[in-house]
């Protein structure tokens, strides 16, 4: 294929675009454009030239001589076209080969289609928001129902269960989270202990640091901190994983092979989180108590040994079972929310980002709501008044 209008390399240098006013042969006003009118030349001075050209084109009878333009492209042509008020001037001289740039401008530069004014926009936004909430609710109920059905099937045929996936998930969400939960738990314990020590010292109630930290950490802080960390760490990972599988059609590939993705992908994550979460809570609370005990010995002179031996008296054992019960619920909640948002991801990158953010925010909120419900239901369990 050979190029028809390929021009020989210009021997003269490429000049800047210039506008010169002149007089045509019959004495009428004329404008002569020279130099290069392409994107490279116009990039720096488009706005300046456009206003200059607009001024000149106010005179309708003016003759436009474009025959000495060295280079022209669509950018230059459109700039001129807009300066002319989107129509061809009556008298226009073009260089051969430049006509092509003006040929399809007529059709292209119509009025911009404007979005029509919608007086009911607010109502519509509210309505679609409510429909979305309803959709989320239905989706969640369906997911929980499907998971329950799958669990019954699993109980009937335990050998066909996704045990390998479950153990892999326990490793990912549990074992690999030990480091970060320990670090955060330890620091929270230290900070809490320092804060309370100052207050208790004022009342001479030093020994009550054991009750304060014991109840606070074991019953409330340990579970919530571990759950928030896991929601941020594993919840986002689960949503992103399912979302990417949606984007790359892997979920559809599983479906057409007759492998239900609730059994292979979602159930293992829920089971794994429900198993790993109580253990992580024990671990986090334990480390937090160690941090608290160390800080108490530094601040109040209560030895770590007496702190630990005083703990069983201050905190009834039922609190540990309560914390572990919370763990099971929090873990399952985080996994459910993460899977729900993961499955809703649309096949594009923006949706993946929004889905992951929503998943983390929703699961942390859900954990805190569940914690409040626990606090109300078990308000008279495990709180000794001795």
């Amino acid at each position, binding site marked *: *294929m050979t190029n028809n209008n390929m021009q020989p390399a210009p021997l003269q240098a490429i000049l800047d675009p210039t506008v010169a006013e002149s007089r045509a042969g019959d004495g009428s006003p004329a404008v002569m454009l020279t130099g290069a009118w392409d994107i490279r030349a116009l*990039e720096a001075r488009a*706005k300046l030239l*456009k206003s200059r050209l607009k001024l000149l084109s106010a005179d309708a009878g003016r003759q436009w001589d474009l025959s000495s333009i060295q280079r022209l492209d669509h950018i230059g042509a459109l700039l001129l*076209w807009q300066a002319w008020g989107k129509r061809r001037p009556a008298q226009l001289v073009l260089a051969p080969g430049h006509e*092509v740039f003006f040929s399809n401008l007529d059709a*292209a*530069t119509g009025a911009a289609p404007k979005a029509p004014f919608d007086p009911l926009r607010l109502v519509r936004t509210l309505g679609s928001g409510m429909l979305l909430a309803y959709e989320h609710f239905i989706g969640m109920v369906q997911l929980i129902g499907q998971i329950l059905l799958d669990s019954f099937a699993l109980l009937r045929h335990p050998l066909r269960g996704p045990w390998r996936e479950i153990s892999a998930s326990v490793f990912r969400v549990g074992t690999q989270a030990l480091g970060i939960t320990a670090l955060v738990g330890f620091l929270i314990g230290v900070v809490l202990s320092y804060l309370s020590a100052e207050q208790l010292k004022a009342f001479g109630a030093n020994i009550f640091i054991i009750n304060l930290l014991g109840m606070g950490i074991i019953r409330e802080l340990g579970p919530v901190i571990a759950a928030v960390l896991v929601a941020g760490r594993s919840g986002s990972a689960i949503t992103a994983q399912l979302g990417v599988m949606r984007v790359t059609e892997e979920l559809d590939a599983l479906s057409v092979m007759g492998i239900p993705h609730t059994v292979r992908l979602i159930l293992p994550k829920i089971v794994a989180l429900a198993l790993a979460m109580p253990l992580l809570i024990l671990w986090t609370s334990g480390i937090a108590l160690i941090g608290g005990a160390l800080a108490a010995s530094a601040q109040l002179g209560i030895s770590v040994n007496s702190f630990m031996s005083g703990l069983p008296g201050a905190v009834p054992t039922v609190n540990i079972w309560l914390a572990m019960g919370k763990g099971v619920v929090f873990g399952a909640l985080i996994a459910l929310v993460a899977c729900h948002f993961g499955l809703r991801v649309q096949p*594009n990158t923006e949706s993946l980002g929004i889905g992951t953010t929503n998943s983390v925010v929703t699961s942390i909120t859900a954990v805190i709501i569940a914690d409040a419900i626990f606090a109300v239901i078990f308000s008279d369990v495990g709180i000794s008044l001795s």
Partner: protein
Amino acid sequence: MSPIIEVAGLWTQFGDHIVHKDLNLTVMPGEVVSLVGGSGSGKTTLMRQILGLEQPTRGTVKVFGIPLRGTSTQTVQKIRKRWGVLFQEGALYSALSVFDNIALPLRELRAFDADFIHDMVMLKLDMVDIERRHAAKMPSDLSGGMIKRIALARALVLEPELVFLDEPTAGLDPDRSESFVKLIRSLHQKLNLTVVMVTHDLDTLVSLSDKIAVLAEQKLIVYGSLQEAIAVKHPFILNFFLGERGLRALSAVSGLGQLSSKH
């Protein structure tokens, strides 16, 4: 005329695996050059090296006479505004609408007002035969053929002198791929473009290319017209051009059918 692309003494090595060994390639202005070769022959790697996305182990790549390596970032940015790239899957930004995808390079220049950008985008959409009502859609709502066309419009919006096409017709049905080839050909004639493309599709290759660069055995075994390429007796060329599919594509081009049947 000075060449637009000059690749000299290029070596590419991944560990012990040598992909390119002392490869040379020169592309002159206005040419349409097709890179062909078997899978793993390094066509896409070569193109990415010309684009500066990957670094060759040794050798120089000059585009518009300027070496990409060891040049200031500003100069490289300037070069990058002078070329357009059509990626295999289009690579439209999925978070942006069709309009914003095409408008993005123009907006980045910060030289033009909103009205100008709007008209320019519409002009480019007309150029690639996409109706305006699609401008507000998101890339995920579009078919593969439309994505390719819009990606081409985006590649052309800064009026590039040089266009790279990676598998321009892969994933399109025969009808659409034919019209896409026609589109590229008409744009090439109209805009005086230099085109470098990687393709497996013989129909595209035969109907668009001025020159064919065949990559095999770590170098260019042929670099010339279709006739010159066919004349070389190399197993890859015999398979690629003179296999059943090749002959069918070649017979569509008058004169070449007889020529190739002599082999």
